[in-house]
């Protein structure tokens, strides 16, 4: 299952000791589940607090007098308009407005930004940013950090008990609470929670304290996926790709209106997509019954005509039914539209539905 080039988490020993089952993801050997199993792990996160090792993801610090201008070129973003500590969900786009990666950019200081990128795209992202940076007075520093997420309604209290106060930090804000730490109130579960990048030694100390608290449990990648799918959040490589633009993906909320006439890479292509309207749109899909409908399944309308395809699908432990998302022809994207998914030759009825499946519970103020 894991080849020679597979990368290993710095804290792999802790996961082994916790009884994790490992699997390959984006070139990394990752804990998929722990002994409680994906169902219990998922529910525990929604009820208490889940601890995730997401060190496969990459943190870059972008700094220098031209840092904001570089980011404004690479992303459909007004980096200079961010307040210090404010985070923004954004993208690297290609010239065709396809999504190279989805990212979170946080303004750390006057001319310093933190960029959090997906594991599978980190190398391409760095290359892309470095190539662009030759035109700007900016430096790009990939950081060597352990990256943890702690997610769920008890996350803040568990951190407080471990000596980390989060009181004034609101959703989509990030700070540097200690030297070489980066902590944001954000996540990939739809719950209140935090993501913390920190040196390995500090991470081991923090984890030991957190796991003394019975509200905190290790959660594997399998539950991370079911949590984000219920929350309607996209996985790059499945729901977002370099062939999919933000308008089709229903992510235009991430691009401020004032900059849509701007000069970020892909701006021209995105404008023309917006003018004629995207031909397909990302939607939630609720299959009838209990059989999951998974990524790759074709969708057809009531007449059997091609309607789109599923990009993510599985079972929602909190919803208690299968959940999926995918792309359908714009005319079929209205909630309530009845479609059929082809699962091994069987046509499973699916309802187009709004996202998320489980309400977000972010701490916004």
């Amino acid at each position, binding site marked *: 299952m894991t080849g020679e080039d597979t990368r290993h988490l710095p804290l792999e020993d802790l996961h082994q000791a916790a009884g994790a*089952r490992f699997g390959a993801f984006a070139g990394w050997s990752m804990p*998929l*589940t722990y002994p409680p*199993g*994906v*169902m219990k792990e*998922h529910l525990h996160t929604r009820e208490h607090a889940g601890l995730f090792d997401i060190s496969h993801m990459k943190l870059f610090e972008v700094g220098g007098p031209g840092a904001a201008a570089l980011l404004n070129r690479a992303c459909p973003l007004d980096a200079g308009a961010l307040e210090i500590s404010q985070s923004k969900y954004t993208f690297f786009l290609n010239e065709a407005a396809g999504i190279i990666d989805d990212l979170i950019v946080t303004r750390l200081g006057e001319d310093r930004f933190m960029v959090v990128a997906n594991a599978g795209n980190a190398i391409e992202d760095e290359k892309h940013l470095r190539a662009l940076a030759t035109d700007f007075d900016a430096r790009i520093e990939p950081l060597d950090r352990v990256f943890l997420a702690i997610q769920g309604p008890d996350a803040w209290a568990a951190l407080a008990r471990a000596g980390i106060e989060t009181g004034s930090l609101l959703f989509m804000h990030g700070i540097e609470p200690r030297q070489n730490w980066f902590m944001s109130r954000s996540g990939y579960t739809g719950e209140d929670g935090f993501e913390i990048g920190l040196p390995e030694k500090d991470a081991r100390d923090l984890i030991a304290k957190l796991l003394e608290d019975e509200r905190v449990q290790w959660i594997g990648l*399998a*539950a991370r*996926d*079911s949590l984000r799918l219920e929350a309607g959040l996209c996985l790059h490589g499945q729901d977002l790709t370099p062939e999919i633009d933000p308008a089709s993906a229903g992510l235009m909320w991430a691009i401020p209106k004032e900059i849509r006439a701007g000069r970020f890479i892909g701006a021209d292509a995105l404008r023309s997509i917006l003018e004629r309207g995207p031909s397909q749109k990302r939607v939630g899909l609720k299959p009838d019954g*209990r*059989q*999951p409908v*998974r990524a790759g399944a074709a969708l057809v309308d009531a007449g059997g005509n091609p309607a789109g395809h599923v990009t993510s699908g*599985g*079972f929602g*432990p909190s919803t208690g039914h*299968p959940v999926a998302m995918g792309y359908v022809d714009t005319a079929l994207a209205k909630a309530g539209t009845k479609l059929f998914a082809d699962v*091994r030759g069987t046509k499973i009825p699916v309802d187009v539905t709004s996202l998320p499946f489980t309400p977000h519970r972010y701490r916004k103020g």
Partner: protein
Amino acid sequence: MAKTYFTEDHEWLRVEGGVATVGITDYAQEQLGDLVFVELPEIGRKLAKGDTAVVVESVKAASDVYAPVDGEITEANGSLSADPSLVNSAATGDGWLWKMKLSNESQLDSLMDEAAYRAHIG
């Protein structure tokens, strides 16, 4: 006089009177994780060894369960429609998947007994 056999694909067969009850092993259910759906076979379907008989779906993935020998489906475990997690909680008992009438009992000779299977999974 039932005798139990095992396959390299982590299935078990309990054979009695020319009919095999088939399920997946405890090891297999642990690897798959929490099951949420079992696609059961049609009664009367004829299967050759290696054909997909059943699809078991966990939260994360769908996995095929193959016919370990040739035969005809005589029964499917209907209680799995309401409670697929029986496969997790009782893989070698109430979580059985299907019964099949064997058409070539000599194929059983190539399967493992419990001791050999235990050695196989290490």
